[in-house]
């Protein structure tokens, strides 16, 4: 049965690279929102957050955001988190370091 429900995701930025990451079920970090572990309640998400917060040398200032879970896909509710997961909506000169100069 398909449906939409609220969920909570733990996120942060890698301390070294600065890039956006999401907490997986095994409490490792993924760069893709699709790999994030959606937690059904804010309390559970906060518990996970407290556990990973002690490793801030890996991920800086982790926090929890609210999303919708629809057919297994996580959809952030805020424009901020949509952009964090998708990257800037503007054309970038180079998609990544080392690629050809525009």
């Amino acid at each position, binding site marked *: 049965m398909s449906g939409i429900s609220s969920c909570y995701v733990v996120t942060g930025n890698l301390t070294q690279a600065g890039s956006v990451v999401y907490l997986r079920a095994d409490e490792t970090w993924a760069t893709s929102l699709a790999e994030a572990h959606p937690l059904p309640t804010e309390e559970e998400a906060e518990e996970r957050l407290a556990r990973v917060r002690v490793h801030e*040398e890996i991920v800086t200032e982790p926090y929890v955001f609210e999303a919708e879970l629809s057919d297994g896909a996580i959809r952030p*509710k805020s424009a901020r988190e949509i952009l964090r997961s998708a990257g800037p909506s503007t054309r*970038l*000169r180079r*998609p990544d*370091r080392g690629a050809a*100069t525009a």
Partner: protein
Amino acid sequence: MYRYDEYDRTLVRERAAQLRGQIARRVSGELTEDEFKPLRLQNGLYLQLHAYMLRIAIPYGMLASTQLRKLAHIARTYDRGYGHFTTRQNIQFNWPELEDVPNILDELADVEMHAIQTSGNCIRNITTDHLAGVARDELEDPRPFCEITRQWSTFHPEFAFLPRKFKIAFTAGREVDRAAMLYHDIGVRIVENAAGERGFSIYAGGGMGRTPVIAKEIREFVPREHLLSYMEAILRVYNRLGRRDNIFKARIKILVNETGIERFREMVEAEWQETRESTLRLAEGEIQEMAKFFAPPSYESLSPSDALLAELRRSPNADFARWARNNVVLHKQPGYSVAMLSLKASDTPPGDLSDSQMDAVADLADRYSFGELRVTHTQNLVLADVKTTELEKLWHELRALDLATANVGRLTDQICCPGLDFCNLANARSIPIAEEIRHRFDDLDYLDDLGDVSLKISGCINACGHHHVGNIGILGIDKRGIEHYQLLVGGSSGYDASIGKILGHAFPREEIVGAVEKVLKLYVRLRESEDEPFLDTFRRVGEKPFRDTLYSNELYADHPQS
């Protein structure tokens, strides 16, 4: 340009080495983020939405070609091939990795650059008129005083932890303020008193952000030798009495407003009695020594070229003629002109420049403008000393680089902050709005018909995109997770400063550019002649017709100004 002495070189190298150690301790876990954050911020290093961002100081907007080449190298080697020039004449790189930052700072030190005091609650980069030293209406070149102020404020032990950030701008134009001086914590205007003596009118308590305030004159005339002693007195009063309990009320503008300018002035004057005869008093010899760094370049002795420029502006090459009309400014030196390079072209975010463009512009600066260029607070570049006879040749080269868009001062010459595409503080995107405006209004004939209309876009109330002072301003807000945009009309950043008025409720993303179009159509209908600028029309007719045209089908009075 100012050149570092041994003291400057040591200071900058030592700071880079300190940050290298701090970063190593952060990565090893020895420092927590709470401990590390103030350290990185003192070196211009932010953590944004997607990555770190490094803000590099460009003191009063002056860049040498060697420095721009170094920035190109940094963009290419450590970032994603571009840099973003800001409204405070700085440059930002949006994608550096943490462990690369010390290497970047070492590379910057090689060309006498740094990121010191580009963030944090300290005195930030000193800004000024991008036409300093070449403007015809200039009373005196402000750059020596900017550099004197930079040296005084760098690592000033008393002002390293102010209640909030502190911005100082200088202007010297008799007619035009090109530095938005009245929106700074301290604004300094070079003036001449009735006796013909040069000095400064000092303004305090200006700023944008969530509480926009036009600075108030605190002293009509401060003699040259007392520039630093008077600013020190202002800073001391602010440092002592500025609020530290509420970040939103911590800027000097709040203190000046709450105290009242009269009482604030009294306190500063009392403090000045302590500072005015101190070592801060500037000897005329010191000022003259500093002025030597900013001596005019070796201009050739040429005939006046105003008539030639007028002719170029009527050239049969219509594209070049338009560029000469819109992007070239009269120079005070006979035979020379000022060329403005618009960074508001094609599909790139306002203020962005690629590494290859940086290299190419550095070469142009060497060949056409004595190896120097400037950054404007409107996010453009300037080649300040170009022979008028070489303008057309330069234009051809700029066009090949996509840097000859003839829109300086026009609607599409927008100031625009990075917005929610990059910024941690933003509520809404601003760059896509700027791009949509550029596409909607891409007819240069129409833009020329509109004349000078400033449009400024901020992605949040912090107002990095100066939306309060645009003739038309756009402010991005978040309404229940969805981007909306407020429209403001009637702002000005000049000597005739005014704060734009919010005309009604915010528009959804898909409607905001249409709202701008309605405002422009109304202006064209209401202006008394084609020569009446947008701002004059707005001031003459008031906000009601503009509000009516935007909200005519609604009971706008019922909407909260969200």
